[in-house]
């Protein structure tokens, strides 16, 4: 028991309010022990502070209960496979370590995730309703007939969301079974690059690195993969393999470079990756204006079409865009899970992410881990680049990465940086993207609403107390201050 372990925050080692509770619990355990040794020789006259709580040590503490809830929810949701990391370690409620990024990401529970999505959808719906003409019309006689107004709001929001659903999962008006499930195929297609890039971001998160650079990594991978695809002419099989390798190397190089600079010079990876995104983009734009990349006879910056031997085969025939890349994404998710939870490399990554100093003292080469994890993260994002040029687009343009690189960040955050969580989040955001197109056509609701909902989801997931407060689910341990202001918080969040 030291004074250090008291809820007292030496700079550089702030721990959250939850941590304090644990610190406190720790004292208990200590006292307990001290007592055992001290009891016999102790002068009997003194009243014992801790006699009444002598067994507190074994009683479940509130924090433990909560942790247990996290475990069951997470496994019930199927979001997490069995992990070498105990669930307690993933719940992020652990004191002692610095308040790391990783810890924040894991904070929260399955319920909060669901509620966060719900809350974001509600706010998005309100935004839709706000700009709806019918709603505006009924608002003018709101006091006279409020039901008109409310039903208009409901209609505006649900109309858009129904269109969104029909555009992403199941369209009853589609022609035949094939047509009805066409939206789902489209969702999976769009989810493919989101999943792999999201895994890249998530993996880096777990190693304590903030990889904002998936965008740039996708671009560089796309450049190399596309060039391999249209400039070389190779036999079937070999060609695609080479395209894949080229993309992976491109992404790994661009990511690894950031890792290298960070490890060697201490430059912050957030700044580096942001800058590298732009450098990659301008490099791509430059290349598309060179004879090596520009399609002959074309004045727009667009590359030749990739050879048929260089593209992913379509899984369910030519009527859907869904390609082999999706199956690859599933395999990659399994791989990343294994890498993180069952391999020595992943052990190193996680140790470096959670406490780099302890990792270093334990003989782990932190610089090497930093470079390696960024290279692997880049390679994963690179797979998204390949999925774009060899799967969906089949050409290279300066929009090759679309916004997948940035969406990948939100995907990883929503998936709490676990491989299967990221996979699920990728599917969800893929559905949003696919459905938004249909929604815009059917209801005129702009695609941008997806950005709003997506970012709100991530904001809410990162702040579980807010979500709990909004839904009135406050556990005993809530700080009253938090509950008091969270309503304003929600509105502010929505209004911005």
């Amino acid at each position, binding site marked *: 028991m030291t004074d250090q372990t008291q809820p007292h925050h030496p*700079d550089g080692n702030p721990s959250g309010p939850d941590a304090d509770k644990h610190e406190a619990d720790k004292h208990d355990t200590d006292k307990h022990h001290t007592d055992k040794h001290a009891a016999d020789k102790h002068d009997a006259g003194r009243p014992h502070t801790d006699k009444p709580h002598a067994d507190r040590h074994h009683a479940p503490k509130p924090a433990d209960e909560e942790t247990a809830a996290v475990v069951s929810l997470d496994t019930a949701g199927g979001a997490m496979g069995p992990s070498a990391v105990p669930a307690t370690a993933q719940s992020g409620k652990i004191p002692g370590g610095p308040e790391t990024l990783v810890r924040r990401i894991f904070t929260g529970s399955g319920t909060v995730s669901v509620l966060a999505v719900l809350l974001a959808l509600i706010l998005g719906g309100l935004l839709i309703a706000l700009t709806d003409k019918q709603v505006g019309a009924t608002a003018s006689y709101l006091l006279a007939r409020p039901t008109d107004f409310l039903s208009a709001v409901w209609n505006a929001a649900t109309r858009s969301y129904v269109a969104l659903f029909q555009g992403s999962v199941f369209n009853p008006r589609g022609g035949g079974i094939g047509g009805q499930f066409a939206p789902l195929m489209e969702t999976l297609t769009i989810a493919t690059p989101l999943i792999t890039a999201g895994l890249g971001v998530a993996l880096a998160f777990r190693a304590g690195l903030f990889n904002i650079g998936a965008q740039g990594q996708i671009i560089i991978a796309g450049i190399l993969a596309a060039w391999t695809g249209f400039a070389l002419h190779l036999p079937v099989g070999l060609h695609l393999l080479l395209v894949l390798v080229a993309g992976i190397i491109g992404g790994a190089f661009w990511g690894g470079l950031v890792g290298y600079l960070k490890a060697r010079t201490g430059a912050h990876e957030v700044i580096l990756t942001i800058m590298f995104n732009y450098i990659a983009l301008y490099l791509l734009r430059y290349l598309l*204006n060179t004879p090596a990349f520009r399609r002959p006879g074309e004045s727009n910056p667009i590359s030749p079409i990739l050879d048929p031997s260089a593209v992913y085969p379509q899984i369910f025939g030519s009527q859907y865009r869904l390609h082999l890349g999706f199956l690859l994404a599933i395999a990659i998710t399994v791989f990343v899970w294994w890498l993180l939870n069952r391999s020595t490399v992943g052990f190193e990554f996680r140790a470096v992410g959670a406490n780099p100093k302890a990792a270093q003292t334990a003989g782990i080469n932190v610089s090497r881990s930093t470079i390696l994890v960024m290279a692997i993260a880049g390679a994963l994002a690179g797979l998204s680049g390949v999925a774009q040029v060899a799967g969906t687009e089949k050409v290279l343009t300066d929009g090759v990465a679309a916004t997948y690189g940035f969406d990948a960040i939100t995907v990883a955050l929503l998936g709490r940086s676990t491989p299967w969580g990221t996979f699920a989040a990728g599917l969800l955001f893929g559905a949003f993207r696919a459905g938004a197109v249909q929604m815009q056509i059917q209801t005129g609701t702009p695609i941008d609403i997806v950005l709003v909902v997506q970012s709100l989801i*991530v904001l809410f997931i990162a702040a579980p107390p807010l979500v709990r407060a909004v839904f009135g689910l406050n556990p005993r341990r809530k700080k009253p201050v938090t509950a008091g202001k969270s309503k304003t918080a929600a509105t502010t969040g929505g209004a911005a």
Partner: protein
Amino acid sequence: MSTTATSPQPGKPQAGTPPRAEERQQATSEKPVTWKVPVLLSALGIVAFIFFGLMGPNQTARFGLSSSGDFFQLPALEVPGFLGGIVLSVIMLGLAGYAVYLKTKDQAAPRWLPIAFIVLFVAAFLIWVVGGARTPSISLAGLIAGSVTLAVPLVFGSLSGVLCERVGVVNIAIEGQLLGGAFTAAMVASMTRNPFIGLLAAAVAGAVVSMVLALFSIKYLVNQIIVGVVLNVLVSGVTGFLFSTVMQADKATFNSPGRLPIIDIPVLSGIPVLGPILFKQSLVGYLMYIAVIVVWIGLFKTKWGLRVRAVGEHPQAADTMGIRVNATRFWNVTLGGAIAGIGGSFFTLVAIDSFTKEISGGRGFIALAALIFGRWNPIGAFFAALLFGFADNLQSIVTIIGTPVPSQFMAMLPYLVTVLAVAGLVGRSRPPAASGIPYVKG
């Protein structure tokens, strides 16, 4: 107090009065002098000698210094391309050699040296670019004036970053603040038919974005980088959505803000080169100069600034001295947002007179770069932003005069320079110690 990015003493943020800075140099003189600066300067010197000198253009580069409106005319500056390149790059090599010599005596290069080097390098580069163009003539006055104009939103953005980071909150949301400001300025100015009200509204919008950042990062302890990144997406989504649904539906009512007038101060604005920069600006332009000076004085000369910096460096110490850490953070971040919001209004009230999606075009990130390059100092950030504005402006000019340098590389320049800066020159430079770390009271 300037772009001391190349200063040979890493690990010391700028602060306080010049005499103290001197002492600081003394105090750190025992720290080993690295090879970084001499080596980098030598490498750049050699690059300059080969490209700008030996491979320099044969034409004479002509730089116009006055415009027709000036009240007296300066003759144009004419520099023979090849000779100019050689002379300048030889001087650069001399400076690099001096730095190497100092290093062998275990002394750090003086502060002016890297700055002088940068100036020479840019000059040589300009001669090289212009001398190699189809029409080897540009108006230097116009180039500089244009650079300042393009730098306006960058300066406001980086000031926002300075205020936030100095108080301990990382602000990745500058882009969102600029965009929010631009949108709101356009919308409100259109609805009220008054661009000045639009300007005010822009400040409010920026502040609101900042408040969300502050709320989530200070109260809910969400990682500040996450909030920043997500806020950028959120603002982009909301403005994009409202642009499509509201503005496009009724452009006349919602997206015709009108422009802020250019305030031309008579006579003074006629001074060649300096006149247009200092005395022929929109209100936003003048506000920029004021903001830089006010923020600098505020941070380093006032009670408020002392407290702000203490909160950003050692929040617990500030707390024990009775300073309310989280409140200080909240209001400073909000203030920063308001400043960035004003910067955003530049896009829709000064540059052009309407809003389009993503009008800020990633300049928030360049502002972030300027802030780092300027070492968390308002004046440093100002000059860094000017440099980036210059690169931006040069990019469009080289396209017009037809130089062999691809414009994409010019566009890439700010980002490359920033990578160099964070990795090489200011790699170990020290942001405020508590930046990015939430403060939880015991």
